[in-house]
């Protein structure tokens, strides 16, 4: 019987593969601009305010669901808890900014570049969670 051993090295390889895959698709990195092709997703800079709004909400909601699923796991390690605490902090910070963005959208106004930049910066901060582990 073939015994599979899941160790840290394996997890590292999986994580790097996933991260590289995502980067190859152009969806992460400093600017978060999904690669644009005729059939693929639009670049964030080409999205309408409403599309950006739906995109921000979608990412936030996915992070929210992921957090809620993770935090109830009984087998969380201290390292995972550390990352989840940071994640919650960033989510608490980004929530009112997205809410402000939604108010602009719902009123038909064009959100300011400053609000968009703030959201993108905070989403980028979530990618900085890897740095937490290095501290």
């Amino acid at each position, binding site marked *: 019987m073939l015994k599979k051993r899941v160790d840290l090295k394996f997890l590292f390889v999986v994580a790097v593969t996933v991260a590289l895959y995502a980067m190859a698709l152009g969806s992460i990195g400093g600017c978060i601009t999904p690669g644009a092709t005729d059939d693929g997703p639009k670049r964030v800079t080409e999205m309408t305010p409403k599309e950006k709004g739906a995109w921000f*909400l979608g990412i936030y909601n996915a992070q929210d669901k992921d957090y809620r699923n993770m935090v109830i796991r009984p087998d969380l390690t201290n390292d995972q808890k550390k990352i989840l605490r940071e994640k919650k902090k960033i989510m608490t910070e980004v929530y009112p900014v997205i809410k402000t963005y939604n108010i602009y959208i719902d009123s038909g106004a064009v959100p300011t570049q400053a609000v968009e930049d703030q959201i993108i910066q905070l989403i980028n901060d979530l990618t900085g969670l890897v740095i937490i582990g290095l501290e």
Partner: protein
Amino acid sequence: MAILTGAVVGGLIELGKLGLQAYFQAMRLAGKTPEETDKMYQEEKVYFDTHAPDTLPDVPPDIPEQ
């Protein structure tokens, strides 16, 4: 590989997840009409409005190291 702590691995996994979420959210928007985009926006907004961060459960306390 001393740098490869559990926290670094966890951070890398988070990074990968976020990247894929960003990509798939953008894919969901691809080719949508303004009406469809509006529908998606409204649906996401309902979840967002009912899940404020103060409703996020706290992370359990750390387990003391042996």
